[in-house]
């Protein structure tokens, strides 16, 4: 009882912070369906977590709970951490995860059979290799010919996501060949006892649509559905929200920003959020204050967008600066300019800045290579979050290993991260292998021993990882099918940092540092920078042909503009736009013209 009341005080105290912002406070007070339109830096995550804590304490009683759907695992982790700080432990009555994990763990795994989805017994999720094999087999049957079946992957995915309801005649008539291909591909998967990533939300939508009792059951378990980054979550989720919240009786608390919708290629469109926000039965609130960016950056960002949103910085905000850097030469030369000129200038201007507060953002991963090379030449450490990174930032296994490394590099002394958290996240990761209390205890014992023996920041990362791999991971990963792809990632990484690999001299402390993100320049694609913020942002390659790409349709143009806007609004103090002097992006030109015309 006493612990519950102290939890209470934690979020009540935090809520006081919202009081001065009228819209945040209104969102905090909302009792029905609520859509929060939240621009960059508007404090949406803070509002969302405090509201979640309140609803858990005041609106939803045991044994019922709240489902919170977020864009990716990193967002989920961020929300979990913030909720934990408000006294709400992960697990239990709160589900936090992606649309895919919600579909898989809350609908498909418990109900696939009884919902009549016709999936194979004890199906698993296809790893990349298996999905590729199914695609090749289906291609050979339906299309044939020498081309690479992978070329079809995007079209196939779009077609599947387009038809949430395959009873529609258009499913058969619109593109019969593609439909036949999809059906053959899915049949190949099923014959192998598999579903793939796209299947998860599609099957979940079908299960919900066909089974009234399932909708009731979901409302029983989760009377409230919270959705973060609504604009990027796509049509399957939108359909679930329509069914669960506007017919079955779940209450919706959705957060998003139509201007930051940048995942059109996955089927997301800003229209869905806009339509949702215009419903009569929804209380729609727009957070107007941008606490992140300097006031100049806030007003310039509206020029970028080409829309009047009425965003403002708080009265006491710093000003912020927009810099234009027309460059000469190719990308390699521009990259050198960034490292040799720009970074030192910035450090001179802001002597206390941590390199982790600087990010170079670019529209395509290959540009990151140029930057990484230039940085390496000059001895700068970087963290890369794009397709060419040493390992993808989204890898749960690698993120967990970073946590383990942080514990070994002094975390055991400082309690950051706490061992219990490292153990419980590991147990969640290997949940298929750790099914009862005994196995959990064994895992805790093994992990604690393995980490304790290797708490030395100077140890070579390859040795450290190999030991952990042998002692902890190998035996368990063989029972954890969901980690197949991540295991490949880990082994590739091990090869690259190994004796025959291309990466030399990687001490453990550096790996741990990636987890903490200290003192390294961030290199990221614009897409991967979603949701993050930095003191200084350098938009690298802001050129025609890159952003927007050549031959862009109207729709592509709109999305490119939003992508530019997302990059622009990551900056607190300085935003630098870099481009070849004769080829600036039209968005750069627009901003420049508007700023000069002020």
């Amino acid at each position, binding site marked *: 009882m006493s612990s519950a009341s102290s939890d209470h005080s934690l979020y009540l105290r935090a809520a006081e912070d919202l009081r001065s912002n009228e819209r945040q406070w209104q969102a905090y007070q909302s009792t029905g369906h609520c859509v929060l339109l939240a621009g960059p830096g508007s404090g949406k995550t803070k509002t969302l977590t405090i509201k979640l804590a309140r609803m858990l304490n005041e609106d939803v009683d045991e044994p019922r709970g709240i489902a919170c759907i977020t864009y990716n695992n990193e967002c989920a982790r961020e929300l979990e951490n913030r909720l934990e700080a408000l006294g709400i432990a992960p697990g239990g009555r709160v589900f936090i995860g992606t649309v895919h994990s919600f579909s898989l763990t809350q609908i498909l795994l418990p109900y696939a059979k009884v919902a009549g989805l016709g999936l194979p017994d004890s199906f698993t999720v296809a790893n990349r290799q298996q999905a590729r094999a199914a695609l090749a087999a289906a291609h050979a049957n339906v299309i044939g010919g020498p081309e690479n079946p992978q070329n079809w992957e995007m079209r196939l995915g779009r077609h599947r996501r387009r038809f949430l309801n395959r009873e529609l005649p258009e499913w058969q008539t619109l593109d019969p060949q593609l439909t036949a291909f999809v059906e053959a591909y899915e049949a190949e998967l099923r014959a192998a006892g598999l579903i793939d990533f796209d299947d998860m939300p599609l099957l979940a939508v079908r299960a919900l649509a066909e089974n009234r009792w399932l909708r*009731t*059951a979901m409302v029983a378990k989760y009377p409230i559905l919270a959705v973060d980054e609504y604009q990027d979550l796509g049509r399957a989720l939108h359909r679930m929200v329509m069914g669960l919240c506007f017919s079955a009786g779940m209450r919706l608390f959705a957060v998003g920003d139509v201007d930051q919708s940048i995942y059109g290629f996955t089927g997301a469109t800003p229209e869905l959020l806009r339509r949702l926000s215009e419903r009569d039965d929804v209380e729609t609130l727009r957070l107007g204050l941008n606490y992140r960016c300097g006031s100049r950056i806030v007003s310039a960002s509206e020029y970028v967008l080409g829309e009047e949103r009425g965003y403002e910085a708080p009265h006491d905000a710093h000003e912020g600066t927009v810099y234009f850097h027309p460059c000469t030469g190719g990308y390699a030369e521009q990259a050198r300019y960034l490292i040799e000129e720009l970074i030192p200038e910035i450090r001179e201007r802001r002597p206390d800045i941590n390199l982790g507060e600087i990010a170079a953002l670019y529209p395509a991963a290959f540009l990151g290579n140029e930057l990484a090379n230039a940085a390496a030449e000059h001895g700068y450490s970087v963290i890369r979050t794009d397709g060419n990174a040493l390992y993808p930032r989204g890898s749960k296994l690698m993120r967990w290993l970073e946590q383990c490394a942080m514990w070994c590099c002094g975390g055991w002394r400082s309690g950051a991260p706490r061992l219990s958290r490292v153990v419980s996240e590991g147990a969640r990761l290997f949940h298929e292998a750790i099914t009862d209390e005994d196995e959990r205890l064994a895992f805790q014992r093994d992990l604690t021993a393995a980490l304790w023996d290797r708490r030395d920041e100077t140890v070579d990362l390859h040795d450290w990882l190999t030991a952990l791999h042998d002692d902890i991971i190998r035996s368990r990963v063989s029972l954890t099918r969901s980690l197949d792809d991540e295991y490949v990632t880990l082994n590739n990484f091990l090869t690259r940092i190994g004796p025959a690999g291309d990466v030399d001299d990687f001490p453990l402390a550096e790996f741990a540092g990636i987890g903490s993100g200290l003192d390294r320049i961030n290199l990221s694609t614009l897409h991967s920078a979603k949701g993050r913020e930095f003191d200084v942002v350098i938009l690298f390659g802001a050129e025609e042909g890159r952003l927007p790409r050549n031959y862009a349709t109207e729709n592509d143009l709109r999305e490119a503009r939003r992508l530019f806007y997302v990059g622009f609004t990551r900056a607190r103090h300085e935003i630098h736009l870099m481009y070849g002097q004769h080829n600036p992006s039209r968005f750069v030109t627009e901003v420049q013209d508007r700023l000069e015309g002020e």
Partner: protein
Amino acid sequence: MYLSRIRIENFRNFRDLDVALGGNIVIVGENRVGKSNLLFGLRLIFDPALSDSSRQLGLADFWDGLEEITAETAITVSVEIKDFEEDLDVLAVLTDYRLDDDPDTVRLTYQLRAQPSLDHAPANDDDFSFVCFGGEDEAKRFGHDLRRRITLDLLPALRDAEGDLAAWRRSPLRPLVEDAFVGIDKEALKGISEKIAEATAAAIDFDEVKALEASIAELFLAMAGSKQDVHPSLGFSATDATRINRQIRLLIDEGRRGVADASLGSANLIFLTLKLLDLQRLIAANKRDQSLLAIEEPEAHLHPHLQRLVYKHLFEAIVDGEDGANGDVGGAAAVPLSVILTTHSPHIASVAPLESLLLLRSHSNEGTKGYSVAEADFTKADTEDLERYLDVTRADMVFARGVILVEGDAERFLIPAFAEDMGISLDEHGVSVCSVAGTNFQPYAKLLCALGIPFSVITDYDEVDETPRAYNRALKLVRIIDEASGGDDTDAVIKTITKKKTWGETFAEIQKFGIFVNWSTLETELFEGDYAQEMINTLHEHNFSAKRKATLNALAANPTDFDADELLKMIEQMGKGRFAQRLATRATGKLVPKYIEEAINHVIGLV
């Protein structure tokens, strides 16, 4: 929600029990048939107070009849639950555990089996481990989370209601009082404690009391020494404000007596009252969503009338809500409570909802089997019929091993005497003779078929217009009996009977179903048989009018020439029951009518 089915395999008395349930469960059956073990099976699934080490069963818990226990042998207890969607809290707890092919049914399973890593046949208790899982997928484990919300409480047979009421820690009053005190102002309590201290001081202030207190303290000090001194003093109660609630006692007889002075029966009733209040409180405070209250031998120490009154109220008002329905306006809302009783009391069986009856009977090679009314799929009309008919005397039959259904009191009194004459004690065989007071045997036959209790029916020929009424009566019963025994072509069975040419052949065929018919009525049959003199002697005991006396004397003079109607009128005037009772004392050594002998032997052969 309600429990709709239970299945127990290889556990103690049960090789393979599989029986439908109807929500509340009233378990009847002979001693040592496994009633408590069935409750224990439910506790394995639902009781949060059962520790994991108790949940860890061992070799001794396997069914005795097993020839060997291999790595594949498992103890399994599973229950199915229906109607779990009404309460969203319950739904949230149970929804993941639906059956693969039936979303409206949830299953929870406890299973004990050999450790998966074991490479030899299990040889000791440590070779086993248990799992609790829902639905049909072992990966869907459940545990304390579920038991905390859907909870079984057991009031065991050897409960010490008085002792529990007296000890604060164990008292069912404690949580209620503590809860009531939560909202009370601490300052107000302080005021009271000061007054108590004051009153105590005043009482102690008498010299006589002070002297006593001093002598106690002195002697204690002398005996224990100063290091062990507990400083004894006299007073009414501790006066600490935070402990005042512990001084609250339940009083009876308008505050004149403590509950320790209550009779055993009252103490049990008080205990039950407090327990039910506590269950209501837990649910109201959202500490749990559904209670399963198991009471062993609820009849303990209770007068029969109270048994009926208390449990009728429990079933009708508390479980179903005051108005029978879900507590509409006016009536108290139904508490989400299922009652599970094990009983030997016909009084309790007579007030239990019919579909709750679960009869356990042991079969030598197959362990204990279960028979329930819920299994029988009675229509609403059937159920209402039976609940009306099942008074205490008739409820007796659900406790019998075999039943002889008869039309009236005459048979009820005479048949045990006849049986004795045949050298058979019906009580020893556990056979009850049950009068249906008329000829409507059908509902009883249905009930007995459902409960798997063997029975025979004795009924009169009753000729009207050359056709015996017994004929149609019997055909209906044959249909019930054949259908209940799983006969797949009852029409053919009936046809075999209707095709017979003579009544003799017809009733001979009908007898195969345990229905025994005479050629007139019992009394005339007896008179024409060996009993004329005894019947005349019995009638002589009654004070008839002069005219009847004359008829009786004429009959006595020439028993072979008798008017059946006149005889029956005299017996009816005396009272059929009374007549039969008296006649029974004279029946010894006489020839037992053949159809009755056969009816008795039929049942005895089956029990």
